[in-house]
Structure formats: structure tokens, C-alpha cells
């Protein structure tokens, strides 16, 4: 489908922009407006975006949804489990799927998978979003400073990024989450676990975005409008905030959208390895980990796997669309 950039096709794909300009010749459009116009034409990205909004609503209204369509996520339904035969698997086809239990029930204790998936979305999204926010904040700050100041600051920051990128993160995360006490910093139990996961995931993935921002800053720094601002005596802080940052919004937005799915997967991996959220609080990775020993009960693994897959896919598609929309040279 996508061809390598050629002059001929390039001219064709440039057409919509020409039309845009023609449609409203009177006023100039901001980068944001142009991007939005282009995004609207990308049906896949739009669908992914709609799904993500839906997912966020599900996470926010989880208690309401579960009250209407399911049972409390930690409630046992052992009467629906084959205890008499001793197999401890759900009675009925497809893992005990019914109108009461839309996605069936877990083996052994018979908890409703649907409501656990719904509640699990809260943990996944909360941790992934906040961790992304953390790494974007650190990455952007250090990236801009490093690119703008150059010199020894740049060298130091770049080496720091190399160091973080070379860090055996998973091993470290497992060790840290394993030995961390139950109470610290005034937090306790799951609150502390969530904070810890956000810190581990966010604090160690900032170099990815930091490098991109540094590169962008390096090119922006030499652009004419920055030169001119500098020549009329603008101070560093002003240039950084007013001239540089607005031009960095696009890459920041795009790469944070692409960082979120990585973080969702990382959280799932940690929960899978048993160093994530404390049971019985549902999380998708934790559900997968529970399901492993029951590989003869495919539904148990299917739903959390599906939830992770669809969410990660949606974030990736949306991020791709966003990148294309912001990049005037994008070639589709």
C-alpha cells in the first residue's frame, strides 16, 4: 500500500492540502487545525481514537457498568464451578458464558471475568497514562535543556540517557517491587504499589522521548525565527517557552501516544510476573498470570489477552495517525 516517496505520488497526496488551502484562502491555519483536518480523514486513526475515548469512559464508569451488567469483581461464585466433579472449571460452555456473566467466570473461585476486565482497565490506563506523563515531563525538560544549551550539559545528559537505556529495567523493576515495604511515603497497600509502578515505568522510559526532543531542539535552535528572537535580545527562558516549546508540541503528543501502549504492556508484564498490583484487585496482566496454569480453559486467557491487545493496538494506530497528521511531509 504505502509506496516509497516518489515525486509523482507526492504530488498526488499533496492535493488535499492544496484543496484545504483553496477552501479557505482568507485566513492562515494553525498547525493544530491542519493536523485535525488531516486526522479526520484518517478513518483508522479516528476509529482508534473513538475506541480510546470509549475505553477511558469504561474505566471512569467501571462501578456503574459493573452494577448494571455484572457482579462485583471480587465476588465468588463457586456454585457455578464444577466442585462435585473436582475439575474446578466453570459449568457450561465457553467458560460459563451467560447473560449474567458476559465473558464467563474464572476457574476455582468463579469470579466474573467481565467485571474484572472492566475494573482492570482502570489499573492499566491509570498506570500507563501517569507513567507516560512522568516520562514525558522528565524527557521534555531534559531534552530541551540538553539540545538548547549544548556543550557539557548536552554531553552529560546524553550519556545519562545512554545509561538509562542500557539499564536492565525489567530485572530492576522485579527486584525493587519485590523488596519494597508495605508502607512508605505515607502510602499503604495498593496505593503504594500503583505509585511504585508509575515511578518505575515512568522514571526509566524518559530517555526515549528525551532523545527525540533533544534532536528536534537542535534543529529548531538554528531556525531563523529563533535567530531573530535572539538577535533582538530575547532571554533564554523566553525563547524556550515561546519559541521552542510550541513547536515541540507535535512530537511530544505523538510520542506520548506511542509510549502509552508500551507502558500498558510493561505494567501487564510486571503484574504477570507477580510484582504488580496486590490481589484481589483485578489487573489484566495479573489475570493472564492466573490463567496460565489453566491453559485448557482458553476463555480465561482470551479475555485479558484480548483487552491488552485491542488497547495497545488502538493506541498504536491512533499514535500513527497523529504522527501523519502533524507531519507535513507524511506520505500516505
Amino acid at each position, binding site marked *: 500500500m504505502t509506496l516509497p516517496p516518489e515525486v509523482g505520488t507526492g504530488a498526488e497526496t499533496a492535493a488535499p492540502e492544496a484543496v484545504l488551502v483553496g477552501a479557505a484562502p482568507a485566513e492562515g491555519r494553525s498547525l493544530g487545525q491542519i493536523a485535525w483536518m488531516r486526522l479526520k480523514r484518517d478513518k483508522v486513526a479516528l476509529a482508534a481514537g473513538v475506541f480510546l475515548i470509549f475505553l477511558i469512559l469504561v474505566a471512569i464508569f467501571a462501578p456503574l457498568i459493573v452494577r448494571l451488567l455484572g457482579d462485583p469483581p471480587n465476588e465468588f461464585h463457586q456454585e457455578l464451578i464444577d466442585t462435585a466433579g*473436582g475439575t474446578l472449571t466453570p459449568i457450561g460452555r465457553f467458560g460459563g458464558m451467560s447473560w449474567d456473566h458476559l465473558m464467563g467466570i474464572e476457574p476455582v473461585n468463579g469470579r466474573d471475568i467481565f467485571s474484572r476486565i472492566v475494573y482492570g482497565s482502570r489499573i492499566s490506563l491509570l498506570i500507563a497514562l501517569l507513567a507516560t506523563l512522568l516520562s514525558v515531563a522528565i524527557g521534555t525538560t531534559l531534552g530541551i535543556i540538553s539540545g538548547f544549551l549544548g556543550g557539557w550539559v548536552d554531553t552529560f545528559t546524553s550519556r545519562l540517557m545512554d545509561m538509562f537505556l542500557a539499564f536492565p529495567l525489567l530485572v530492576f523493576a522485579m527486584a525493587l517491587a519485590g523488596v519494597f515495604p508495605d508502607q512508605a511515603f505515607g502510602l499503604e497497600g495498593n496505593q503504594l504499589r500503583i505509585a511504585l509502578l508509575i515511578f518505575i515505568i515512568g522514571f526509566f522510559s524518559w530517555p526515549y522521548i528525551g532523545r527525540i526532543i533533544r534532536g528536534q531542539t537542535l534543529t529548531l535552535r538554528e531556525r531563523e525565527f529563533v535567530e531573530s528572537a535572539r538577535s533582538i535580545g530575547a532571554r533564554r527562558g523566553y525563547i524556550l517557552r515561546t519559541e521552542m516549546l510550541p513547536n515541540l508540541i507535535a512530537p511530544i503528543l505523538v510520542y506520548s501516544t506511542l509510549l502509552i501502549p508500551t507502558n500498558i504492556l510493561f505494567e501487564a508484564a510486571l503484574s504477570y510476573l507477580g510484582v504488580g498490583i496486590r490481589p484481589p484487585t483485578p489487573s489484566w496482566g495479573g489475570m493472564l498470570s492466573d490463567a496460565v496454569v489453566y491453559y485448557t480453559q482458553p476463555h480465561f486467557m482470551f479475555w485479558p489477552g484480548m483487552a491488552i491487545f485491542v488497547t495497545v493496538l488502538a493506541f498504536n494506530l491512533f499514535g500513527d495517525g497523529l504522527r501523519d497528521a502533524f507531519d507535513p511531509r507524511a506520505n500516505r
Partner: protein
Amino acid sequence: MNQSRSWRARGLAAVGISAALLLAACGGGGPGGEQGPTTQAGASGFNAGSTTVVNPSDKKGGTLKFANEGDWDTLDPGETYYAYSWNFSRLYGRSLMMFKSAPGKEGNQLVPDLAEGPGQASSDAKTWTYKLRQGVKFDDGTEVTSADVKYAVLRSTDKQTFPNGPAYWEGQLDLPSGYKGPYKTPNMNTDSAIETPDKYTIVFHTKKPFAAFDYLAQQPNTMPVPQDKDTGAKYRNTIVSTGPYKFENLQPGKSFNLVRNDQWDPATDPNRKALPDRIEVTLNVNPDDIDNRLISGDLDVAVTALGVQPAAQSRVLQDPTLKENADNPLAARNWYTSINPTVAPLNNIECRKAIMYAMDHTGYQTAYGGQFAGGDLATTILPPNIPGHTAFDLYPAGPDNKGDVEAAKKSLEACGQPNGFETNIAYRAERPKEKATAEAFQQALSRVGIKLALKPYPQGDYFSSYAGNPPYVVKNKLGLALNGWAADWPDGFGFLSQIVDSRVIRPAGGSSNTSVRIPEVDQMLDTALTELDTDRRNQMWGEIDKRVMEEAVIYPGVYSKTLLVRSKNATNIFVTDAYGEYDYLGLGAQK
């Protein structure tokens, strides 16, 4: 006994899951399609092997294949400390006494092996004399003497060389102070503990009366070790055999074979049939793979006998032909929960009783794997297959065993906490069954307003730093802690001493007992150990059990049961109550 197997099994399950999926897909085979020729009309059917001999045969020859999902803890008789390993060690070693190779309860009987008869006790039960059989030889042809037995016992007391072995000998024997085993203190006179007046006589002296000494004498630690061939911690790879089989091609961590020992003389050994010619053991095999191969007939014994994995469990129980070829023995193990009276408000017995009543007993059972793979509902500490078990139920859990909510509420009122209270439950993070049990506790206790928070801890330090560490328990309010115990041998002392004696609680942590602190019980244990009459002694164990249960400091969960798949190739299959496993000494092979 050591119970750190299941986490390892789970870790392997996670790593090898893709391989297991693959094998599940192609290794199914047709159950019942290729049943071996039925040699003799013995008993058969589900669980027949637990009480009778399935496929009885005296035919010699053939090969049996064993697999272990992890590494062997050690084959060295001086250090090994797993039930399956003690069961297996009888194939290559001869201890003073041994458990009879017989089905069911009969397997609990002690019979003389290297000794001519049971130990002769002095009237104070502190001196025990054994006479050795004459003509027993090592696999190099030298004769076994009492000095070899003495040496074997003494070397096992060196806990720096053998850190994981049982610690009974150094605890009970009257060893000179400062004795550190024959490696570090070779010239110390140890006659105060063990005397060898002649080549065939060995005399043990204990510090305190120890009426159940024959159980100590059946430990593999008394299997003779020739001093000139002993290589300390490395002896595990060069073991000199005294039993009907010796080692061949031992590759640590991978595999080894047992082949016939031509120096073994059946005339000196009334206990062993020694039917198969060869036994091949593979180590570190994926547990799901083991199940599939057992079902297909490619493998004969899952040697650790922990029972099949959940995947094979539902397969075996759903398929009548597979179920017919499975056994469901009771292991001498109790999965229980400690209720710590050191954590308020559980210092009040009424609050402890509220937990006893409120818990959903069937929920406990289901969490552990249900009635077949999990076990029977326990109401006492001693499991039924331990002599001395007395059946009683002080805290009936209602007609459906789902807990007696009314009684629990009454207890809460009597405790002054009518609306319930908050506390924590500790469990081992690596064990899915304990996690499920903790969740079941949380659900069941919430019915009466008791709020539980789950506290998973790493299994390796569970007793030393967390649930078995008294100050930590108090500081972190671990009101409940999941626990489990299997006896080192089927006897009240072996089962109770480490879990109900308050004197084993160590202030720095490390003991399985955290909750039982009853001075009266300590007294009762001491009295029982001076009682030489076995029946009277067994009765006393039952009384101790009841006294502990009256204090509501232990919630007995399930008497553990395992689901074992019977080999298609093996003959003479039966479960011995001594280990709750197939008797590895009795098995024969068709081909």
C-alpha cells in the same frame, strides 16, 4: 518436611508454557486405546491403588522411567529431606529401620532393615541398641559394619556441609559440646552419643527420653557411608550403594539411572522385591509435559508425587477411562492457617472463634484444588492417616460447610467487636493456591464485617522474615498466616512437635509455629515422649491436638490429597501411607 516444591513447579510451568501447549496439542493420544496386557486380575478403578495393590506381579525385569520437574534436592542420604526422596532412597540404601513396602496403612509400619530387629530401649527411653544383620555389603563388596552407620549419622550432623538436612540427630543425641561433625572435629570422642561395642552392634544415647526412636532410625541418615569413600558435599554424586540398585551415569541436574547392584544379597533383605532391572530418572522436566507423558504411557512415575497440574486435573477427572487409572491418596499433610493471638483483637479467644466459624470451609477446599486435588475438609490438626488422629469438630461450619455466620456474629459480640474488625492475611506470593485461599478468606470473613487485607510475601523468607517472625507479625498486624505442615514421619511427634510446641518459636523468626503458645501443650508433649507404650502415646497426640484446637489458634483447612496418574507399564502399584506416594520400592515393570 520441606515444602518448597510447588513454586518451582509453577515457575517452570510459566517458562515452558508454550512447549506445554504444543505437547498438549499433539500428545493427547487415545486414552484406553492401548492398554497393556492385564497380567493378573487385581483391583482396579479410581483410587484403587491407595488401599490395594494394582496389577500385582512378581515378574522381574523391565525398565521404569521416572521424571522430576525440578532438580533432586540431593541424593546424599545424609542430607536429603523430601518425602519422595526418602521413599526413593530405599532403592539404593538400607537404613536401620524402614517403612514396610505395603499398601495403605500397613505402609506406616516400621520394620527392621539393616537392623535385625527394632531398637531395644532402656527403661528411661534414653539408650537405644540395634543389632545389625550380618553379610550386608556395599556395592564394592566390603561388608557393612556398625562403624559405617555411626559415621553416616555423625556426618549428617554437620550442618555447614549439609545445611538442608533434618536436624534431629544433633538435637537428640548426647554429643560432646563443640562437636562439629567428623570433617571438622575428626578426633573427638563421640561415644557419649553413639557406641559401637562390636561390628554388628550400635548403641545410641539421647539427652532426653525419646520414645519414638525407631522413627529416627528409619531416616536415610542411618544408611551406612564408607568413610574412605566419603567426599563430603560431593558424595551426592558418588554414592556407594547398599540396596538392590546402584547408580549409573549420574549427571547432576540432568539424569541418572539405577541398575542392579550385584553385591546385594536378597537373603539379607526380607523387605525388597527389587523387580525392575533398570530405573531411569530424568530431572528438570516441565510438569505439564510430565502429566502428558504419564497419560500417554511414555513415563511411569512423577517422582515428586505432588499431583497433576490443573490442566491435566480437569482432563483426568472428566474422562472416565483416565480417571479409572488415577489414584487419589491422602498425604500426611495439613494445609492450615495460623490465627495469631499476638495481634489485637485476636488476643481475645472470641474474636479467633469468630474467624473459625465465619470461614467458608468448602471455599478453602476449592482454593486448594477441590475434593480430589485439594483434599478433605480438616477439622483437626493431625491428618487421619497419622496414628493418634482423633476425629472431632469443635467449630462446625454449618450444614453445607460454608461457614456458620450466626455463630460467628455471636462470637464477635462476645469479643466486643460486633461490627467486625480489620486485620491482615499473609501468604506465599509464589503459590497460587495460597493466594486463592487468602481471597476466599477475604470473601468469607467480609460476611461478618471482618475486613482482611492480603499480604503476599516471598516464599524464601516467608518464615524467617515475615509470617514466622514474631515481631514482624505484631508490627504488621498479620492476624492470619497461611501455613502447611507435613510430618517427617507418620507419627504424632513428627507431625506436632514443630507446629504446636511454643518453645520452637524463635524471636528472630524462622519457625513454622507462630500462633500456638500454650504452656500446657508443651508439658503434654514432654510427657508423651517418655511414654514407651505406643497405643497410649498415640492417644496422647490426639489429646494435644484437641487442646490446641480449643484455643482457636489454628484453622485447619484441608487434609491434603493428590491426584496421581498410574503408570501403564508398571506393575505392583500401590500407595504407601508412610509417604502418601506410590511405593517406589514395590513397583515392577512389564517391559
